[in-house]
């Protein structure tokens, strides 16, 4: 009876409570985080006339202010979308980059800002596709990571992507506030489309540079890291290389040793 209140006031209870709270918020956050559509989209080339027409209306309502009524571009507000292809529309809209919320150095990924259903995105993609030929959304067979070769994907990744995205896919800085984002939790379709369309500062890797099969290898490599295939040896400290190690050793590392020494010294004297 008297034990409980005493226990509640002990500093250990505070630590336990804090840990519990943190774990629960983390779990809740993961549960409520809106997930991007996972199923690959149908090819825009097969779209019906109604789809294109609905797509045009959606485009006029949401995109035309910046991209022009015929997606021909509108000065500095937005570039022409003729020929960018359905892949670009799917990538930009279903990662939440478009419609652009506010002008900035770079349109950020924002899964929570996706206000369109998958069907609506498909319709807009079909409309843009109808204006001029461009890369279509990827075919499902190239998105199946389990069929890819992560070792070959790793080689391709280190040659073509690591200089911007880091060899562990944890992202990197570019000039003037631009950045190559971290590639964890990006759907296979978006990885494929990013390579194919080269959003913003990213170069285009067309099928001559990296074949569809090789793109699948790259996807397999990224998914392998995501699933923990490279995490050996303990906590990765954010996969930041020596920067994380340095931060750790100058804070926790040395504090642990000095702390232990001081404590034992006090205890023993």
């Amino acid at each position, binding site marked *: 009876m008297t034990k409980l209140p005493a226990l509640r006031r*002990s*500093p*250990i209870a505070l630590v336990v409570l804090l840990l519990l709270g943190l774990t629960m918020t983390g779990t809740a956050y993961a549960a409520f985080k809106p997930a991007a559509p996972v199923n690959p989209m149908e090819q825009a080339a097969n779209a019906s006339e109604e789809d294109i027409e609905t797509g045009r209306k959606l485009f006029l309502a949401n995109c035309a202010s910046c991209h022009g009524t015929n997606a021909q571009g509108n000065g500095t507000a937005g570039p022409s979308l003729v020929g960018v292809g359905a892949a670009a529309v799917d990538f930009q809209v279903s990662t939440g980059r478009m419609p652009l919320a506010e002008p900035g*150095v770079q349109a950020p990924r924002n899964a929570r800002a996706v206000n369109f259903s998958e069907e609506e995105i498909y319709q807009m993609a079909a409309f843009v596709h109808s204006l001029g030929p461009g890369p279509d959304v990827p075919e499902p067979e190239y998105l199946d990571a389990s069929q890819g070769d*992560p*070792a*070959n994907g*790793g*080689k391709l990744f*280190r*040659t073509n992507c*690591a*200089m*911007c*995205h*880091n*060899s*562990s896919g944890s992202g*990197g*800085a*570019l000039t*003037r*506030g631009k*950045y*190559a984002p971290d590639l964890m939790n990006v759907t296979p379709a978006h990885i494929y489309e990013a390579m194919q369309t080269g959003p913003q500062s990213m170069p285009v890797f067309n099928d001559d540079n990296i074949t569809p099969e090789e793109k699948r290898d790259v996807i397999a*490599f990224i998914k*392998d*890291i995501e699933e923990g*295939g*490279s*995490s*050996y*040896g*303990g*906590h*990765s*400290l954010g*996969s*930041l*290389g*020596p*920067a994380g190690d*340095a931060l*750790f*050793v*100058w804070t*926790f590392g*040395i504090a*642990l*040793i*000095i702390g*232990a*020494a*001081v*404590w*034992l*010294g006090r*205890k*023993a*004297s």
Partner: protein
Amino acid sequence: MTTTRVPQGADHLRRHGRTTAGAPPTKPTLPPGVGWADERVGAAKGMRFLLNKVFPDHWSFLLGEIAMYSMIICLITGTFLTFWFVPSMGHTVYDGQYAPLQGVGMSEAYKSTLDISFEIKGGLLIRQLHHWAALLFIVGIALHMARVFFTGAFRKPREINWVIGTVLSLLAVIEGFAGYSLPDDLLSGTGIRAMAGFMQSAPVIGTYMTFMVFGGEFPGELIIPRLYIAHVLLLPALLVGLFTLHIMLVVVHKHTQYPGPGRTNDNVVGFPLLPVYTAKAGGFFFIVFGMTALISAFVAINPVWVFGPYDPTQVTAGSQPDFYMWFSDGALRLLPGWLEFTVFGTTWSFNIFLGSLLLLPLVWTIAGVYPFVEQWITGDKREHHILDRPRNNPVRTAVGVAAISMYTVLALATVNDILAIKLNLSINDITIAFRTLFFVAPVVSFWITKRLCLALQRADRDKVLHGREAGIIMRSAEGRFEEEHEELDPYTRWPLVQYEPIRPLSLTEGPDVNERGVSRRRQMTHRLRRSMSDFYFADRVEPVTPAELAAAHHHGEQEAIEAIEQHSDPVNAIPGEVPHGRHHDDH
């Protein structure tokens, strides 16, 4: 130890210290969680035997030992690694357990590193232990060096040991760099590439030098075997040899001590070397080893399989060396590109040269000569075995902090890209900010540190003269509120008054002009010495003299001031000279 001691202003206090050395023991209390574990497992009690009276002096004396034990851990784990590591750049194809690299071409060095990590039992733990211990080694050295600097432990007779220490720290950094380069992964290869660039930037001889070291064009097949011999044989031999000398000199000089009652320039207060020191050393070694092992078991370091094998056509974002090389890499990131130019068809890469071939030797040279420079300025040729409290040498402390701030700015510039993504900043703005900070930070931190030291010294004076605030508010008959002040006991007072003020040459030597107003003819070097002496010691707070103390204790405020005027040293008195008519009456 025999020294000619000049009586100091507060010498009478030392008599008190001698008669009753040793403060009453205080019972240690343990935090609740720890106490719980201790009562059941007896963790601390078990260690008590080994660790009895481990730290008679001060925790800061352990920093050097952290370095020493980390070095030993590196030696032990490194030996283990040599059993499997293959120092060869010969080509091979990976066929081991780590799937994402199967069938990938790589060097034998990289493959053997993967094998140690994935095939050899306990190999990964040992690799991580080796690397974490290497980082802790250099952290230990850096903190130890800072301790020695800020307490003035480098003063006579320990200047040579300071120089040895400087060389040790340089060797440690080179040893670390060589080790980091061995696994031949993408990051270490990028590091070697940078080293090649450093060497090539040497005017005229650069290209020849690179060809000699690499045995031809970069990367060649020789660099890893060469670095290997340096890392496992040459540098460890030098490190262990110099370190032994370093420790022998510590024994010869005896350890310095912080000022305290009973501690004089002629004695050492502490515990006998044997058997206590042996137990102490052994116990602390196990603590350092244990903690490093704990870290290595739970936190990954240098996961080479993530970086991939080195290939000169590849590079990864976030390429950084280990932190001890940061300041040089950071300097390269801050130096403007126009420092590279072409004259008569030859390229002069000062943007690289300044930040590497010039900066690296410069930093260690400045560190190495500091004790001699300070000695030349003070002209103090006496031995010192009592450490300075950093506040009692404000300019030295401020110079140290300014140097550290400069070094830190350069070091942080190395992670400009990581800072940019983590803080959502533009890398260009960060670079501009760091360029500015490189010049501003030392000035500002110098000023702040110096002011802080002087303020702390004044606070000490205040405490000695007026006692410490007792926390008791008294109301007088007229209704005035006043806080009680409690007089300091002699043990607490001693460290606050024992130091000797150093006065600038312009005071002790007299003015620069003679009686007739004609400026004295002095050598250039002497004039420089005078101005340096002013820079160091013009602003200073003198310790409380016995006369001031007596006056403050026995008389009212007004009388106290008169007493000070009667008894205190004239401002420009030679330090240590005993003024006539000094008396001290005990109460």
